[in-house]
């Protein structure tokens, strides 16, 4: 079973993504900030990550930079899901950038295409 890491500070949105992804046959793990996210990523080696940009403490781009420096993690595809407008270039190497509130089918489609 492919595993997806969800990084978002809003517990309601984490719950939503967990239910949505598990209902569609993925395993999930979650983190509510950048530090936690890196830790969970190292422990679980997820197949894909959804990443919020604006979080308390360090922001999403910082997470991505640290991820990219880790040889074990740098090839994991990242989908940005954020409430910030004009966020397309915040993480240019992300496989996709979705705006909140996002479209469920669009997200599932992108995951399907990108999960290795």
């Amino acid at each position, binding site marked *: 079973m492919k595993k997806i890491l969800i990084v978002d500070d809003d517990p309601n949105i984490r719950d939503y993504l967990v239910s949505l992804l598990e209902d569609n046959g993925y395993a999930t793990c979650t983190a509510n900030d950048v530090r936690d996210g890196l830790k969970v990523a190292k422990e679980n080696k997820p197949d894909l990550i959804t990443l919020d940009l*604006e979080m308390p403490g360090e922001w999403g781009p910082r997470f991505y930079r640290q991820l990219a420096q880790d040889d074990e993690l740098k090839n994991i595809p990242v989908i940005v899901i954020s*409430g910030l407008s004009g966020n397309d270039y915040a993480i240019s190497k992300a496989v996709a950038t979705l705006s909140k509130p996002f479209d469920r089918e669009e997200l599932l489609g992108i995951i399907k295409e990108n999960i290795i």
Partner: protein
Amino acid sequence: MAENILLIEECESHAKALKLYLERSGITVFIGTTIDEMQSRIRTKEFDILLVNPFLNGQSIWSHIKKIKNGKPLLQVIVLCTKKNLDQAMDEFGTNAINFLEIPVSSKALNLAIVHARKCIANEQRIALYSERLADLEHDRTLYQQLFNEVPCYISIQNRDLRLIGGNTLFQKDFGNQIGEHCYEIYKHRSSPCPICPVAKTFCDGKSHSTEEVVTALCGQQYHVLTQTAPIVDDDGEITQVMEISTDITQIRQLQGHLSSLGLMLGSMSHGVKGMLTALDGGIYQMSSGLKKNDPERIERAFDLIKQMADRIKKMVLEILYYAKSRELQYETVDVVKLVRTVVSTISSLARKNSIEIKTDIPESLGEMDIDSNWLQAALVNLAENAVEACQHDKGNEKNHIVEFRLWEDADKKICLSIKDNGMGMDQETREKMFTLFFTSKGSQGTGLGLFIANHVIKQHGGEITVESMPGQGTCFQVSLPRKKPEESIAPFGKSLEAPSLD
């Protein structure tokens, strides 16, 4: 200058002799030998000099000449007469004649008299011209003074020491007639010049400068003004004074402040709104998948989430509406205890969910009070929610979290409510900024409007709000409110945009 002279003399041969003499110097001379001739000549032609022997047939014609002289004040009169009449002529004419010549006339005396008459004519013409100009000037001066006075701006004139040396009517009305005082004392009650002074700049470079200032009138009213300056130069082109024109733009600034803070608010909230909408989507998804799977636990959780999101969105929209629209309070009479119990019950489910204990010290009855129950209740709920959230976020210790409500009537017959928590508390900065517009310590969860509005609503009711807080120890809000509508209420939003200050 070639003068016209009217010569009146009853002795025609003497007259002709004089005419001949005068015409040699290029002067035109007309002769008259009777009163009638004199009057008809005067009527038909302009004369500069009347050379007259005022004794025709032994009778003085002074009264006739006086009439002529009244009609033509510029006409110069030279009297000719015999030695025996000279004294009487002088008595009669006095200063109306510029010269008295004795017959037989000496040519030297006549020449001098003519020259003297010329000078008098020239002087009087000049004086006439000057007085005409002076009248014009006076008229213009009145006009400009009126323009200066009636301009619907504050105009003041200042010298190099920034002392006032004049002001228009509006300036004097609102700032007093304080000639000689310093501009900054009158406008701003300062004891030293303003750091950026457009008047000083204009004295320096002779150009117009502008600034925006807040000035305080005699009555204490503050005005936002756009101040512009212009140099006033003397005849040598040196700037001796500077004119300062201040236009009242208070209303524009208030409107602008309101609009820009509205824009700022919408911008700062959009992230929070998007988060809530996404969570709402999540709730709907969980609800529908829960129904499909027939999973009651999931359905219940989803319903809880949807309810929570609906509440938050409702609250946020109400806050925006409250801020966006200046509204007067709608007073009604409510039961004090009932109101507070409603507030407590509104937050009790949130408290229960987070294992926070609620203690109350509320009397059986405290009578009624006049309030806008919608807004006051919302304000109190906001304070109560803050207390619960302060406990909720106070993690990493084994504290039993408690929120205490206490309600009583104080010595001034005011209704007092204290809401005390033992949550995370606030540092000084948060305490100082907590009532400021758009300040939030909750990240995207807060609008920064809640406490700002709560404070404003309580002030609008004539109430007071105080806060004590220590980081790590907890916070206590205390609200005191009069039972009746205050006589003088503070303005709703749109009129007063200042963030309320911390008591």
